[in-house]
């Protein structure tokens, strides 16, 4: 017993963390301040519920009239096409960009240029990119496809670059030691290591493009988003509900499919 000295009474296991306490206090004050400035009040919140109730009641029952269904069908097909095309081109373009961004594979100037480009692609939300493309190439699916290609490249290139940076250098070194040219090293030494993750990312991106393809339509990028926007403008809330339900169904199917693809290539 005597060889274990009693702890000195002054020792504290959890000393007060004053910087953190002050940090939280400042955060709380800021929330109150920002809410006041933005006129976020309880009264308005309650009033909002009343509006929502009227809006929702006008949505029911959803409108399944044949002419509306035809609109829905053409819009939905266009959205799917936008998503698929954007994913295919996005994947094809992200692969070289992602490889170029890997610092363990490419010389620093190339890697940093690619990283800057990727950062640029990721700066804006797809909707803002879509607005720019609508201005550049006009209303319609082309603008939507281009916007989603940019979004896909931002996401996929970054993840591919990171996957390549985490790969085993030993495997690549052995292929390089055989005298293989650079692209053969990539094909046989790098790609096998990152391919399963690449396919997983791509499936996820298809899923994500499916959701965003509805979004880019809202700003003129074609597809179901355009139909949805028109329905809102015309106060066809029952048709809005039909469209929303269809989008939910498609996105869920997409998610199941992409999950299935990812499992297949684990």
């Amino acid at each position, binding site marked *: 017993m005597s060889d274990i000295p009693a702890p000195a009474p002054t020792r504290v296991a959890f000393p007060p963390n004053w910087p953190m306490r002050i940090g939280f206090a400042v955060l709380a004050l800021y929330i109150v301040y920002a809410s006041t400035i933005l006129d976020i009040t309880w009264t308005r919140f309650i009033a909002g519920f009343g509006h929502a109730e009227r809006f929702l009641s006008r949505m029911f029952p959803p409108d399944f009239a044949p002419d509306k269904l035809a609109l829905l069908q053409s819009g939905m097909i266009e959205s799917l096409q936008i998503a698929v095309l954007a994913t295919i081109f996005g994947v094809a373009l992200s692969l070289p960009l992602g490889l170029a961004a890997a610092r363990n594979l490419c010389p620093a100037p190339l890697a940093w240029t690619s990283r800057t480009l990727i950062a640029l692609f990721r700066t804006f939300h797809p909707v803002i990119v879509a607005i720019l493309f609508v201005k550049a190439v006009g209303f319609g699916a082309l603008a939507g496809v281009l916007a989603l290609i940019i979004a896909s490249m931002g996401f996929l290139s970054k993840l591919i670059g990171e996957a390549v940076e985490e790969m085993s250098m030993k495997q690549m070194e052995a292929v390089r030691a055989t005298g*293989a040219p650079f692209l053969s090293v990539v094909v046989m030494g790098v790609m096998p290591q990152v391919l399963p993750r690449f396919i997983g990312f791509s499936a996820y991106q298809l899923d994500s493009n499916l959701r965003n393809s509805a979004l880019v339509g809202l700003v003129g990028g074609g597809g179901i988003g355009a139909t949805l926007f028109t329905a809102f403008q015309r106060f066809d809330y029952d048709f809005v509900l039909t469209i929303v339900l269809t989008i939910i169904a498609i996105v869920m199917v997409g998610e199941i499919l992409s999950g299935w693809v990812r499992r297949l290539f684990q």
Partner: protein
Amino acid sequence: MDAKAPFKPAAADGIDRSLVIRHLRKEYRSGIAVLKDVSLTFEGRGMTAIIGPSGTGKSTLVRCINRLVDPTAGEMLFMGQDLAKLRGSALRMARRRIGMVFQEYNLVERLTVIENVLCGRLGYLPVWRAWMRKFPPGDIDRAFRLLDAVGLGDFSNIRADQLSGGQRQRVGIARALMQDPDLILADEPTSSLDPKTSVEIMELIARRAGERDIPVIVNIHNVELARRYADRIVGMAKGEVVFDGPPSALEDSHLLTIYGGEGWLE
């Protein structure tokens, strides 16, 4: 200590595969030399074992030869070229004539056994053939025969990550032989293997290289294995060659010089 290796005539096919290293120096950080002025002449056949304590520059020496590591100074004359000066495609041409066996096998884990062996041909083939897996039938034939020769004939379509350590090293040896090399470098080929497998692997390297008259330079920790399989032993300590002679000339006093201390010898 200065006993020279027994003279060996050039290989039966009359090709001079000797390697002359002169004043080789390598500094990873400037001013701190891992290799200090190493000069060695390797006859164009037989096995040379390099022994020495960890961190003494054995690995660096071997990696300088195929330029996985760039030497700071010195020359390495092989097949009429100074390996130290090669760049770009000339370096790749030289590398494809130098097979390498690694301590941790360095197989591409997600490729099959036969694909790993065929990696040894990448230096001879255009990229599209690697990408489309359109290897020339002659190469595929040879890959199968080499797999038979290393005792893995039934494993050709199994993924490399499913093999045991000894099996992986056999694939590594087949990959090196697949290059049809004029020199084989082996960097601690048995250090990750159990004693029995280590003997089998050394036996395999010695036999397969011997029947093709390919000179082998092997780094090895196990002095007994070095004595048993090498025609010549080079002892290194602190980045310098401190012993060079046939296994029969290697005595305990030399081991003391190489490894220092003495308690471990008893």
